[in-house]
Protein backbone atom coordinates (compact mmCIF):
# COMPACT_ATOMS: atom_id res chain seq x y z
CA UNK A 1 0.00 0.00 0.00
CA UNK A 2 1.46 3.34 -1.05
CA UNK A 3 1.55 6.56 0.95
CA UNK A 4 -1.37 8.09 -0.93
CA UNK A 5 -3.43 4.95 -0.50
CA UNK A 6 -2.76 5.11 3.20
CA UNK A 7 -3.64 8.79 3.28
CA UNK A 8 -6.99 8.20 1.61
CA UNK A 9 -7.50 4.93 3.46
CA UNK A 10 -7.69 2.93 0.27
CA UNK A 11 -7.09 -0.72 0.83
CA UNK A 12 -5.47 -2.65 -1.95
CA UNK A 13 -6.24 -6.30 -2.33
CA UNK A 14 -3.49 -8.87 -2.46
CA UNK A 15 -2.83 -10.08 -6.01
CA UNK A 16 -2.95 -13.78 -5.24
CA UNK A 17 -6.66 -13.46 -4.42
CA UNK A 18 -7.54 -13.41 -8.07
CA UNK A 19 -6.03 -16.79 -8.75
CA UNK A 20 -7.80 -18.31 -5.78
CA UNK A 21 -11.18 -17.55 -7.30
CA UNK A 22 -10.26 -19.77 -10.24
CA UNK A 23 -9.92 -22.75 -7.90
CA UNK A 24 -13.70 -23.02 -8.23
CA UNK A 25 -13.51 -23.92 -11.93
CA UNK A 26 -11.79 -27.21 -11.19
CA UNK A 27 -13.26 -27.82 -7.74
CA UNK A 28 -16.87 -27.89 -8.96
CA UNK A 29 -16.45 -31.27 -10.61
CA UNK A 30 -14.76 -32.78 -7.59
CA UNK A 31 -17.37 -31.41 -5.19
CA UNK A 32 -20.10 -33.20 -7.05
CA UNK A 33 -18.35 -36.52 -6.52
CA UNK A 34 -17.02 -36.01 -2.99
CA UNK A 35 -19.52 -33.73 -1.29
CA UNK A 36 -22.69 -34.73 -3.11
CA UNK A 37 -23.55 -31.22 -4.21
CA UNK A 38 -23.81 -30.12 -7.82
CA UNK A 39 -23.64 -26.69 -9.40
CA UNK A 40 -27.07 -25.19 -9.95
CA UNK A 41 -25.87 -22.92 -12.73
CA UNK A 42 -26.36 -19.71 -10.78
CA UNK A 43 -23.47 -17.65 -9.55
CA UNK A 44 -22.97 -14.02 -8.80
CA UNK A 45 -20.82 -11.21 -7.59
CA UNK A 46 -21.97 -8.70 -4.99
CA UNK A 47 -20.61 -5.24 -4.38
CA UNK A 48 -21.52 -2.09 -2.55
CA UNK A 49 -23.28 0.65 -4.47
CA UNK A 50 -22.04 4.17 -4.71
CA UNK A 51 -24.66 6.89 -4.99
CA UNK A 52 -22.75 8.87 -7.61
CA UNK A 53 -23.48 8.96 -11.32
CA UNK A 54 -20.04 7.65 -12.14
CA UNK A 55 -20.95 4.43 -10.45
CA UNK A 56 -24.11 3.99 -12.51
CA UNK A 57 -22.10 4.40 -15.69
CA UNK A 58 -19.51 1.94 -14.44
CA UNK A 59 -22.13 -0.60 -13.49
CA UNK A 60 -23.73 -0.25 -16.90
CA UNK A 61 -20.33 -0.82 -18.51
CA UNK A 62 -19.80 -3.95 -16.44
CA UNK A 63 -23.22 -5.34 -17.26
CA UNK A 64 -22.63 -4.64 -20.97
CA UNK A 65 -19.26 -6.34 -20.70
CA UNK A 66 -20.75 -9.38 -19.02
CA UNK A 67 -23.54 -9.60 -21.59
CA UNK A 68 -21.02 -9.32 -24.40
CA UNK A 69 -18.75 -11.96 -22.91
CA UNK A 70 -21.60 -14.14 -21.81
CA UNK A 71 -23.61 -14.19 -24.99
CA UNK A 72 -21.08 -16.19 -26.93
CA UNK A 73 -21.15 -18.82 -24.18
CA UNK A 74 -24.91 -18.77 -23.76
CA UNK A 75 -24.81 -17.07 -20.34
CA UNK A 76 -27.49 -14.64 -19.23
CA UNK A 77 -26.93 -11.77 -16.83
CA UNK A 78 -29.32 -10.57 -14.10
CA UNK A 79 -28.94 -7.19 -12.49
CA UNK A 80 -30.38 -7.14 -8.95
CA UNK A 81 -30.45 -4.77 -6.03
CA UNK A 82 -30.96 -6.52 -2.68
CA UNK A 83 -32.79 -5.35 0.45
CA UNK A 84 -29.59 -4.05 2.02
CA UNK A 85 -28.87 -1.90 -1.02
CA UNK A 86 -26.09 -4.05 -2.42
CA UNK A 87 -25.62 -4.64 -6.11
CA UNK A 88 -25.72 -8.19 -7.41
CA UNK A 89 -24.76 -9.31 -10.88
CA UNK A 90 -25.98 -12.83 -11.39
CA UNK A 91 -24.83 -15.13 -14.14
CA UNK A 92 -26.95 -18.02 -15.24
CA UNK A 93 -25.04 -20.79 -16.93
CA UNK A 94 -24.03 -24.29 -15.96
CA UNK A 95 -20.32 -24.35 -16.77
CA UNK A 96 -17.94 -22.84 -14.23
CA UNK A 97 -15.19 -22.90 -16.84
CA UNK A 98 -17.14 -20.12 -18.55
CA UNK A 99 -18.78 -18.46 -15.56
CA UNK A 100 -15.75 -17.87 -13.35
CA UNK A 101 -13.71 -15.90 -15.93
CA UNK A 102 -16.72 -13.68 -16.64
CA UNK A 103 -17.25 -12.99 -12.93
CA UNK A 104 -13.56 -12.36 -12.64
CA UNK A 105 -13.63 -9.77 -15.39
CA UNK A 106 -16.43 -7.90 -13.61
CA UNK A 107 -14.36 -7.85 -10.45
CA UNK A 108 -11.28 -6.77 -12.38
CA UNK A 109 -13.14 -3.82 -13.85
CA UNK A 110 -13.98 -2.56 -10.37
CA UNK A 111 -10.41 -3.16 -9.24
CA UNK A 112 -9.00 -1.26 -12.21
CA UNK A 113 -11.25 1.68 -11.43
CA UNK A 114 -9.77 1.75 -7.92
CA UNK A 115 -13.06 0.58 -6.46
CA UNK A 116 -11.78 -2.74 -5.13
CA UNK A 117 -13.07 -1.79 -1.69
CA UNK A 118 -16.60 -2.07 -2.96
CA UNK A 119 -16.14 -5.71 -3.90
CA UNK A 120 -17.66 -7.95 -1.30
CA UNK A 121 -17.95 -11.51 -2.46
CA UNK A 122 -18.78 -14.01 -5.15
CA UNK A 123 -21.38 -16.65 -4.52
CA UNK A 124 -21.75 -20.02 -6.23
CA UNK A 125 -24.99 -21.85 -5.78
CA UNK A 126 -25.04 -25.64 -5.49
CA UNK A 127 -27.95 -28.01 -5.10
CA UNK A 128 -27.94 -30.56 -2.35
CA UNK A 129 -30.50 -32.90 -0.89
CA UNK A 130 -33.07 -30.71 0.82
CA UNK A 131 -32.07 -27.32 -0.52
CA UNK A 132 -29.31 -25.04 -1.65
CA UNK A 133 -25.74 -24.75 -0.52
CA UNK A 134 -23.49 -21.83 -1.36
CA UNK A 135 -19.80 -21.43 -1.66
CA UNK A 136 -18.94 -17.82 -0.87
CA UNK A 137 -15.69 -16.30 -2.03
CA UNK A 138 -14.77 -13.39 0.21
CA UNK A 139 -12.64 -10.74 -1.49
CA UNK A 140 -11.40 -9.48 1.87
CA UNK A 141 -9.98 -12.81 2.93
CA UNK A 142 -9.34 -14.31 -0.47
CA UNK A 143 -10.85 -17.58 0.70
CA UNK A 144 -13.96 -19.64 0.18
CA UNK A 145 -16.42 -20.67 2.85
CA UNK A 146 -19.70 -22.61 2.80
CA UNK A 147 -23.09 -21.10 3.57
CA UNK A 148 -26.10 -23.40 3.95
CA UNK A 149 -29.22 -21.46 4.87
CA UNK A 150 -32.20 -23.44 6.14
CA UNK A 151 -35.58 -21.94 6.82
CA UNK A 152 -35.73 -18.39 8.02
CA UNK A 153 -32.44 -16.93 9.20
CA UNK A 154 -30.88 -20.24 10.19
CA UNK A 155 -27.92 -22.11 8.85
CA UNK A 156 -27.01 -25.78 8.92
CA UNK A 157 -23.63 -25.62 10.66
CA UNK A 158 -23.05 -29.37 10.57
CA UNK A 159 -23.48 -29.42 6.81
CA UNK A 160 -21.22 -26.39 6.46
CA UNK A 161 -18.51 -28.06 8.50
CA UNK A 162 -18.87 -31.19 6.40
CA UNK A 163 -18.61 -29.26 3.13
CA UNK A 164 -15.56 -27.38 4.40
CA UNK A 165 -13.87 -30.62 5.40
CA UNK A 166 -14.57 -32.30 2.09
CA UNK A 167 -13.59 -29.32 -0.05
CA UNK A 168 -10.40 -28.56 1.81
CA UNK A 169 -8.17 -30.31 -0.69
CA UNK A 170 -9.77 -28.57 -3.66
CA UNK A 171 -10.59 -25.06 -2.47
CA UNK A 172 -8.79 -22.54 -0.29
CA UNK A 173 -11.23 -22.73 2.64
CA UNK A 174 -11.30 -19.91 5.19
CA UNK A 175 -9.88 -21.54 8.35
CA UNK A 176 -11.36 -19.07 10.84
CA UNK A 177 -15.02 -19.93 11.45
CA UNK A 178 -15.77 -16.44 12.79
CA UNK A 179 -15.35 -15.14 9.25
CA UNK A 180 -17.98 -17.36 7.70
CA UNK A 181 -20.45 -14.51 7.47
CA UNK A 182 -23.95 -15.21 6.30
CA UNK A 183 -25.62 -13.68 3.24
CA UNK A 184 -29.28 -13.81 4.22
CA UNK A 185 -31.79 -13.62 1.43
CA UNK A 186 -29.09 -14.26 -1.13
CA UNK A 187 -30.62 -13.68 -4.59
CA UNK A 188 -28.27 -16.09 -6.37
Amino acid at each position, binding site marked *: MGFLDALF*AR*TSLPKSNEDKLFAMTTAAVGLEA*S*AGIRPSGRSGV*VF*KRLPAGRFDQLKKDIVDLLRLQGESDGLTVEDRL*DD*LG*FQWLILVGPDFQEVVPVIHSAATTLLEEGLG*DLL*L*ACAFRFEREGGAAYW*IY*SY*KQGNFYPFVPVGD*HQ*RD*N*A*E*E*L*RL*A*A*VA*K*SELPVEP*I*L*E*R*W*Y*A*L*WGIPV
Partner: protein
Amino acid sequence: MVKRIGTDWGLNVRMFLTLFLLACLYLVFMGALYRFGIPLGFIIVVAGLMLLAQYYFSDRLILLSMGAQEVTEQEAPQLHDMVGRLAALTGLPKPKVAIIDSPVPNAMATGRNPKHALVAVTTGILQALDAEELEAVLAHEFSHVIHRDMRVMAMASFFATVASFIVQAGLWGGLGGGYNERDDRDRGGSFIVIFLISAAVWAISFVLIRTLSRYREYSADRGSAIITGQPSKLASALLKISGRMERIPDSDLRTVQAGNSLMIFPAITRGSVAELFSTHPSLEHRLAKLQEMESNLSR
Protein backbone atom coordinates in the same frame (compact mmCIF):
# COMPACT_ATOMS: atom_id res chain seq x y z
CA MET B 1 -13.90 -42.95 36.15
CA VAL B 2 -16.01 -40.69 34.10
CA LYS B 3 -15.59 -39.57 30.55
CA ARG B 4 -16.94 -36.29 29.42
CA ILE B 5 -17.24 -34.28 26.29
CA GLY B 6 -16.63 -30.59 26.08
CA THR B 7 -14.72 -28.49 28.55
CA ASP B 8 -16.31 -27.48 31.77
CA TRP B 9 -13.69 -25.82 33.92
CA GLY B 10 -15.70 -25.76 37.11
CA LEU B 11 -16.26 -29.49 36.92
CA ASN B 12 -12.68 -30.17 35.86
CA VAL B 13 -11.31 -28.32 38.86
CA ARG B 14 -13.72 -30.03 41.22
CA MET B 15 -12.80 -33.42 39.76
CA PHE B 16 -9.10 -32.70 40.09
CA LEU B 17 -9.48 -31.58 43.70
CA THR B 18 -11.60 -34.58 44.59
CA LEU B 19 -9.07 -37.01 43.16
CA PHE B 20 -6.16 -35.10 44.64
CA LEU B 21 -7.65 -35.01 48.12
CA LEU B 22 -8.59 -38.65 47.86
CA ALA B 23 -5.02 -39.52 46.97
CA CYS B 24 -3.69 -37.33 49.79
CA LEU B 25 -5.97 -39.13 52.20
CA TYR B 26 -4.59 -42.47 51.05
CA LEU B 27 -1.04 -41.25 51.37
CA VAL B 28 -1.54 -39.83 54.86
CA PHE B 29 -3.29 -42.98 55.95
CA MET B 30 -0.71 -45.37 54.49
CA GLY B 31 2.15 -43.24 55.70
CA ALA B 32 0.76 -43.11 59.20
CA LEU B 33 0.21 -46.88 59.30
CA TYR B 34 3.73 -47.54 58.09
CA ARG B 35 5.10 -44.99 60.50
CA PHE B 36 3.48 -46.71 63.46
CA GLY B 37 5.23 -49.91 62.63
CA ILE B 38 2.48 -51.86 60.94
CA PRO B 39 4.01 -54.40 58.49
CA LEU B 40 4.32 -53.26 54.88
CA GLY B 41 2.57 -56.36 53.50
CA PHE B 42 -0.54 -55.67 55.54
CA ILE B 43 -0.63 -52.05 54.45
CA ILE B 44 -0.40 -53.02 50.80
CA VAL B 45 -3.31 -55.42 51.20
CA VAL B 46 -5.42 -52.72 52.87
CA ALA B 47 -4.48 -50.19 50.20
CA GLY B 48 -5.31 -52.73 47.51
CA LEU B 49 -8.73 -53.36 49.04
CA MET B 50 -9.48 -49.66 49.30
CA LEU B 51 -8.52 -49.03 45.71
CA LEU B 52 -10.49 -52.05 44.57
CA ALA B 53 -13.54 -50.68 46.34
CA GLN B 54 -12.94 -47.35 44.64
CA TYR B 55 -12.62 -49.11 41.31
CA TYR B 56 -15.91 -50.91 41.78
CA PHE B 57 -17.94 -48.12 43.27
CA SER B 58 -16.43 -44.88 42.05
CA ASP B 59 -18.59 -44.73 38.94
CA ARG B 60 -21.72 -45.10 41.01
CA LEU B 61 -20.42 -42.60 43.55
CA ILE B 62 -19.69 -40.03 40.88
CA LEU B 63 -23.08 -40.53 39.26
CA LEU B 64 -24.70 -40.20 42.65
CA SER B 65 -22.83 -36.99 43.35
CA MET B 66 -23.93 -35.59 40.01
CA GLY B 67 -27.53 -36.54 40.61
CA ALA B 68 -27.86 -38.95 37.69
CA GLN B 69 -31.24 -40.66 37.55
CA GLU B 70 -31.55 -43.93 35.71
CA VAL B 71 -34.49 -43.73 33.32
CA THR B 72 -36.70 -46.52 32.00
CA GLU B 73 -37.73 -47.04 28.40
CA GLN B 74 -41.12 -45.49 29.17
CA GLU B 75 -39.58 -42.37 30.63
CA ALA B 76 -37.16 -41.67 27.77
CA PRO B 77 -38.20 -43.77 24.78
CA GLN B 78 -36.21 -41.86 22.15
CA LEU B 79 -33.00 -41.89 24.14
CA HIS B 80 -33.38 -45.60 24.86
CA ASP B 81 -34.11 -46.19 21.21
CA MET B 82 -30.94 -44.44 20.15
CA VAL B 83 -28.79 -46.22 22.74
CA GLY B 84 -30.32 -49.55 21.72
CA ARG B 85 -29.55 -48.91 18.07
CA LEU B 86 -25.94 -48.01 18.83
CA ALA B 87 -25.62 -51.12 20.99
CA ALA B 88 -26.86 -53.28 18.13
CA LEU B 89 -24.54 -51.50 15.73
CA THR B 90 -21.46 -51.96 17.92
CA GLY B 91 -22.36 -55.40 19.24
CA LEU B 92 -22.28 -54.27 22.86
CA PRO B 93 -24.85 -55.23 25.47
CA LYS B 94 -27.23 -52.31 25.83
CA PRO B 95 -25.94 -50.07 28.63
CA LYS B 96 -28.15 -48.52 31.28
CA VAL B 97 -29.34 -45.03 30.51
CA ALA B 98 -29.41 -42.14 32.96
CA ILE B 99 -30.33 -38.49 32.80
CA ILE B 100 -28.70 -35.75 34.85
CA ASP B 101 -30.84 -32.72 35.57
CA SER B 102 -28.37 -30.01 34.62
CA PRO B 103 -28.44 -27.20 32.07
CA VAL B 104 -24.74 -27.74 31.28
CA PRO B 105 -24.62 -29.84 28.11
CA ASN B 106 -22.61 -32.94 28.90
CA ALA B 107 -22.52 -36.68 28.43
CA MET B 108 -20.58 -39.44 30.11
CA ALA B 109 -20.10 -43.17 30.22
CA THR B 110 -19.15 -45.13 33.30
CA GLY B 111 -18.78 -48.75 34.26
CA ARG B 112 -15.75 -50.97 34.65
CA ASN B 113 -16.66 -53.14 31.66
CA PRO B 114 -19.22 -53.16 28.82
CA LYS B 115 -21.59 -55.35 30.83
CA HIS B 116 -21.82 -52.80 33.61
CA ALA B 117 -21.77 -49.76 31.38
CA LEU B 118 -24.01 -46.79 31.96
CA VAL B 119 -24.47 -43.86 29.63
CA ALA B 120 -25.61 -40.59 31.16
CA VAL B 121 -26.65 -37.37 29.46
CA THR B 122 -27.68 -34.04 30.94
CA THR B 123 -31.00 -32.41 30.20
CA GLY B 124 -28.93 -29.56 28.76
CA ILE B 125 -27.44 -31.72 26.03
CA LEU B 126 -30.83 -33.15 25.14
CA GLN B 127 -32.06 -29.63 24.48
CA ALA B 128 -28.96 -28.35 22.72
CA LEU B 129 -28.40 -31.08 20.16
CA ASP B 130 -30.48 -32.47 17.34
CA ALA B 131 -30.96 -36.23 16.97
CA GLU B 132 -27.98 -36.85 14.72
CA GLU B 133 -25.62 -34.80 16.86
CA LEU B 134 -26.79 -36.58 20.00
CA GLU B 135 -26.19 -39.88 18.27
CA ALA B 136 -22.63 -38.82 17.44
CA VAL B 137 -22.03 -37.88 21.08
CA LEU B 138 -23.49 -41.18 22.31
CA ALA B 139 -21.32 -43.01 19.79
CA HIS B 140 -18.33 -41.22 21.31
CA GLU B 141 -19.37 -42.53 24.72
CA PHE B 142 -19.88 -46.01 23.28
CA SER B 143 -16.32 -45.88 21.97
CA HIS B 144 -15.14 -45.22 25.50
CA VAL B 145 -17.03 -48.31 26.61
CA ILE B 146 -15.59 -50.37 23.73
CA HIS B 147 -12.05 -49.18 24.46
CA ARG B 148 -12.63 -49.92 28.16
CA ASP B 149 -11.35 -46.47 28.95
CA MET B 150 -12.92 -46.46 32.41
CA ARG B 151 -10.79 -49.46 33.32
CA VAL B 152 -7.65 -48.10 31.70
CA MET B 153 -7.95 -44.80 33.50
CA ALA B 154 -8.77 -46.44 36.84
CA MET B 155 -5.70 -48.64 36.45
CA ALA B 156 -3.56 -45.66 35.56
CA SER B 157 -4.60 -43.69 38.62
CA PHE B 158 -4.16 -46.83 40.73
CA PHE B 159 -0.56 -47.10 39.59
CA ALA B 160 -0.03 -43.42 40.21
CA THR B 161 -1.11 -43.86 43.81
CA VAL B 162 0.99 -46.98 44.20
CA ALA B 163 4.02 -45.23 42.73
CA SER B 164 3.78 -42.32 45.12
CA PHE B 165 3.28 -44.73 48.00
CA ILE B 166 6.44 -46.62 47.08
CA VAL B 167 8.32 -43.34 47.05
CA GLN B 168 6.88 -42.56 50.44
CA ALA B 169 7.78 -45.96 51.85
CA GLY B 170 11.28 -45.74 50.41
CA LEU B 171 11.84 -42.35 51.98
CA TRP B 172 10.59 -43.56 55.34
CA GLY B 173 13.03 -46.43 55.13
CA GLY B 174 15.89 -44.06 54.39
CA LEU B 175 14.99 -41.15 56.64
CA GLY B 176 13.02 -42.75 59.40
CA GLY B 177 15.59 -45.46 60.24
CA GLY B 178 16.78 -43.90 63.45
CA TYR B 179 13.72 -41.99 64.47
CA ASN B 180 13.71 -43.43 67.96
CA GLU B 181 16.47 -41.12 68.99
CA ARG B 182 14.74 -38.01 67.76
CA ASP B 183 12.16 -35.94 69.51
CA ASP B 184 8.54 -35.62 68.40
CA ARG B 185 8.95 -32.31 66.61
CA ASP B 186 11.57 -33.74 64.25
CA ARG B 187 9.36 -36.65 63.40
CA GLY B 188 6.54 -34.30 62.53
CA GLY B 189 8.86 -32.34 60.24
CA SER B 190 10.10 -35.31 58.21
CA PHE B 191 6.56 -36.63 58.00
CA ILE B 192 5.50 -33.47 56.20
CA VAL B 193 8.51 -33.48 53.85
CA ILE B 194 7.96 -37.08 52.87
CA PHE B 195 4.28 -36.50 52.41
CA LEU B 196 4.95 -33.49 50.17
CA ILE B 197 7.35 -35.51 47.99
CA SER B 198 4.92 -38.35 47.51
CA ALA B 199 2.14 -35.87 46.77
CA ALA B 200 4.41 -34.36 44.12
CA VAL B 201 4.97 -37.80 42.58
CA TRP B 202 1.25 -38.25 42.48
CA ALA B 203 0.78 -34.83 40.85
CA ILE B 204 3.28 -35.67 38.11
CA SER B 205 1.58 -38.95 37.39
CA PHE B 206 -1.66 -36.99 37.31
CA VAL B 207 -0.35 -34.92 34.38
CA LEU B 208 0.75 -38.09 32.62
CA ILE B 209 -2.67 -39.62 33.15
CA ARG B 210 -4.27 -36.53 31.65
CA THR B 211 -2.08 -36.97 28.58
CA LEU B 212 -3.22 -40.55 28.28
CA SER B 213 -6.80 -39.41 28.72
CA ARG B 214 -6.53 -36.90 25.86
CA TYR B 215 -5.31 -39.60 23.51
CA ARG B 216 -8.25 -41.75 24.49
CA GLU B 217 -10.55 -38.84 23.67
CA TYR B 218 -9.12 -38.66 20.16
CA SER B 219 -9.72 -42.37 19.69
CA ALA B 220 -13.26 -42.04 21.02
CA ASP B 221 -13.85 -39.23 18.49
CA ARG B 222 -12.50 -41.50 15.80
CA GLY B 223 -14.72 -44.31 17.07
CA SER B 224 -17.77 -42.07 16.91
CA ALA B 225 -16.88 -41.06 13.36
CA ILE B 226 -16.58 -44.71 12.34
CA ILE B 227 -19.82 -45.76 14.05
CA THR B 228 -21.97 -42.94 12.66
CA GLY B 229 -20.02 -42.35 9.46
CA GLN B 230 -20.56 -38.63 10.03
CA PRO B 231 -17.60 -36.92 11.71
CA SER B 232 -19.10 -33.50 11.02
CA LYS B 233 -22.09 -34.29 13.25
CA LEU B 234 -19.76 -34.81 16.18
CA ALA B 235 -17.88 -31.68 15.17
CA SER B 236 -21.00 -29.54 15.26
CA ALA B 237 -22.11 -31.20 18.50
CA LEU B 238 -18.75 -30.34 20.07
CA LEU B 239 -19.08 -26.76 18.88
CA LYS B 240 -22.56 -26.53 20.37
CA ILE B 241 -21.59 -28.13 23.67
CA SER B 242 -18.65 -25.82 24.09
CA GLY B 243 -20.98 -22.89 23.61
CA ARG B 244 -19.02 -21.83 20.59
CA MET B 245 -21.48 -22.60 17.86
CA GLU B 246 -21.72 -18.84 17.61
CA ARG B 247 -18.29 -19.04 16.10
CA ILE B 248 -20.00 -19.48 12.77
CA PRO B 249 -21.64 -16.10 12.76
CA ASP B 250 -25.27 -15.24 12.17
CA SER B 251 -24.31 -11.75 11.15
CA ASP B 252 -24.46 -10.78 7.51
CA LEU B 253 -21.35 -10.17 5.44
CA ARG B 254 -22.91 -7.02 3.99
CA THR B 255 -23.73 -5.38 7.32
CA VAL B 256 -20.44 -6.44 8.88
CA GLN B 257 -18.15 -5.26 6.11
CA ALA B 258 -20.04 -2.26 4.84
CA GLY B 259 -17.39 0.45 4.89
CA ASN B 260 -15.46 -1.36 7.55
CA SER B 261 -11.95 -2.13 6.39
CA LEU B 262 -10.48 -1.45 9.79
CA MET B 263 -12.10 -4.44 11.41
CA ILE B 264 -9.75 -6.67 13.30
CA PHE B 265 -10.42 -10.23 14.24
CA PRO B 266 -9.35 -11.31 17.68
CA ALA B 267 -6.52 -13.76 17.55
CA ILE B 268 -7.37 -16.91 19.39
CA THR B 269 -4.66 -17.76 21.85
CA ARG B 270 -4.92 -21.02 23.63
CA GLY B 271 -2.88 -21.80 26.67
CA SER B 272 -0.92 -24.99 26.21
CA VAL B 273 -0.40 -25.17 29.96
CA ALA B 274 -4.13 -25.34 30.45
CA GLU B 275 -4.27 -28.21 28.00
CA LEU B 276 -1.63 -30.09 29.98
CA PHE B 277 -4.04 -30.41 32.88
CA SER B 278 -7.10 -31.09 30.85
CA THR B 279 -8.59 -34.52 30.30
CA HIS B 280 -9.82 -33.41 26.90
CA PRO B 281 -7.87 -32.05 23.96
CA SER B 282 -8.68 -28.55 22.81
CA LEU B 283 -11.69 -28.08 20.59
CA GLU B 284 -9.46 -26.84 17.75
CA HIS B 285 -7.42 -30.03 17.74
CA ARG B 286 -10.47 -32.26 17.90
CA LEU B 287 -12.21 -30.37 15.09
CA ALA B 288 -9.09 -30.57 12.95
CA LYS B 289 -8.90 -34.35 13.40
CA LEU B 290 -12.61 -34.75 12.68
CA GLN B 291 -12.18 -32.69 9.53
CA GLU B 292 -9.37 -34.94 8.43
CA MET B 293 -11.60 -37.97 8.92
CA GLU B 294 -14.43 -36.35 7.01
CA SER B 295 -12.25 -35.73 3.98
CA ASN B 296 -10.84 -39.26 4.21
CA LEU B 297 -14.35 -40.68 4.28
CA SER B 298 -15.34 -38.91 1.08
CA ARG B 299 -12.37 -40.21 -0.80
